[in-house]
């Protein structure tokens, strides 16, 4: 009899020590959110546009639900404690996120973050990193033209023009740097203008450019080459 008493006490102690023992005996019934999460009227908007965001939640307990809306940019129009809210996109374009926490007397549940693309109206920032202005090369040389292009909405394409003529395109970048291999020919002898044009990945296809001038010397290959 005594053994049984001690055994029960031991079991009680073990369960008391466990963090989740209350949960085990008194499970919480937090709000449940719909699988689709936050639903928005638009997920790609212009700056200062307003969108409607909505969450569908059910309360396993009696009583009201509390809604708290969050965003990493832009502003909410009051009221912001309902299951839907109006969000005003910020002036600066880019990727933003909306999410909500829904609470009841047992706790809160947080929704997944919903991504919103705010179209940037600014032009891509473009810089030709290499070669430098007035750098000198000779005909026949192949040079690397490194173009850094940035935009809040990303870059769709970078075009390289040589003396106004489209020479190459690239949508492949490493650390926002697009590299072109350019072989210099006799038509480029003298001052040659390299222009990089970056096109933003947005509805407006905003374009940004940068230009430099390089000097290309003419040279006749050979000097006793065997044919």
């Amino acid at each position, binding site marked *: 009899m005594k053994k049984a008493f001690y055994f029960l006490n031991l079991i009680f102690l073990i369960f008391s020590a466990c963090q989740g023992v209350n949960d085990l005996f008194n499970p919480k019934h937090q709000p449940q959110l719909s699988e689709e999460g936050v639903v928005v009227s638009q997920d790609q908007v212009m700056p200062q546009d307003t969108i409607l965001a909505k969450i569908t939640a059910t309360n396993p307990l009696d009583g009201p639900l509390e809604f708290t809306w969050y965003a990493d940019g832009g502003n909410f129009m009051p009221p912001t404690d309902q299951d839907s809210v109006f969000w005003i996109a910020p002036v600066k374009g880019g990727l933003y996120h909306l999410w909500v926490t829904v609470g009841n007397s047992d706790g809160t549940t947080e929704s997944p973050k919903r991504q919103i693309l705010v179209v940037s109206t600014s032009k891509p920032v473009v810089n030709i990193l290499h070669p430098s202005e007035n750098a*000198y090369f000779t*005909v026949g040389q192949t040079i690397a033209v490194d173009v850094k292009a940035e935009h809040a909405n990303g870059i769709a394409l970078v075009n390289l023009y040589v003396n106004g003529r489209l020479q190459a395109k690239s949508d492949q970048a490493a650390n926002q740097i697009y590299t072109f291999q350019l072989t210099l020919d006799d038509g480029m002898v003298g*001052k040659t203008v390299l222009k990089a044009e970056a096109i933003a990945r947005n509805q407006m296809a905003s374009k940004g450019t940068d230009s430099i001038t390089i000097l290309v010397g003419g*040279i*006749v*290959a050979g000097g006793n080459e065997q044919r």
Partner: protein
Amino acid sequence: MVSRFIFSLVLLAFAFLTGCKNLERDNPLDPENEKSLTYSAVLVEAFVNTAHPSPYNRWALESLRNLQEKYYADFIVCEYHRDLQVDTTVYDDPYNTPDNQTVFQLLQDRYVSQHNDVPRGVPDVYLNGAQYRFSGTYNAQSLRQQVEPLFLQQISQENYFALQPEITFINDTTLQVKCLVAGLGMHVVEQKRLRVIFLKKEWDKAWGLHLNVVTKLVWPGIPVPDIKKGAYKTVDAGRFHFKDLPDRVVVALVSDDELTVYQTRYTDVGKQ
């Protein structure tokens, strides 16, 4: 009487020797003067072709001519005229001889090996050896604009090597070339060679340009025996035979690997 004469002689000798002892070695060109030094002249070696119709070589020669007229003896231009292809006569330069081509190519290839970004071609211009390379041109001033700042930088530097070419006419077709070499400012001369270049001055009617055509290059350079501080030696480059005597003999003190030129001087043959 005799004893008075001897006494006077001894006194004179004493005074002379005493005076000599105090003689300061302040001649800036005296190798034994610790502070001796001399000016630099820059050797400009241009590999060119005057037969190809493109204007690049002409532009290069025009730039060099302008600089030579401006800086005269400090800017010593030697033109190595090159054929473009060895087994054809296409664009063969009229100022070159087949004998020279192999030698010119050895020199150019050695220089090009130091600047792999641009392969061998013409015009290809070097300042004081392979130190500075200028390949190609894009107008008649482009080479001048590139070369002049570096040339001015070169001649502004103190130079501790003295060269004094001595040319002797042996006969109508033969020259004897010697050169006195000294290290100034207590510098030794070690592991150096003497490059000897013979130039013929030509007037190119088609281009309206004076040319400084290399008719012979001593390759490899003649080894210069090591010279101690404060000393000098005369290097005998030997006798050279010509069908037509050159107008100018250029001598240059170069590194053992022929890549660096330390000092250059010339003598015009007609002014001997």
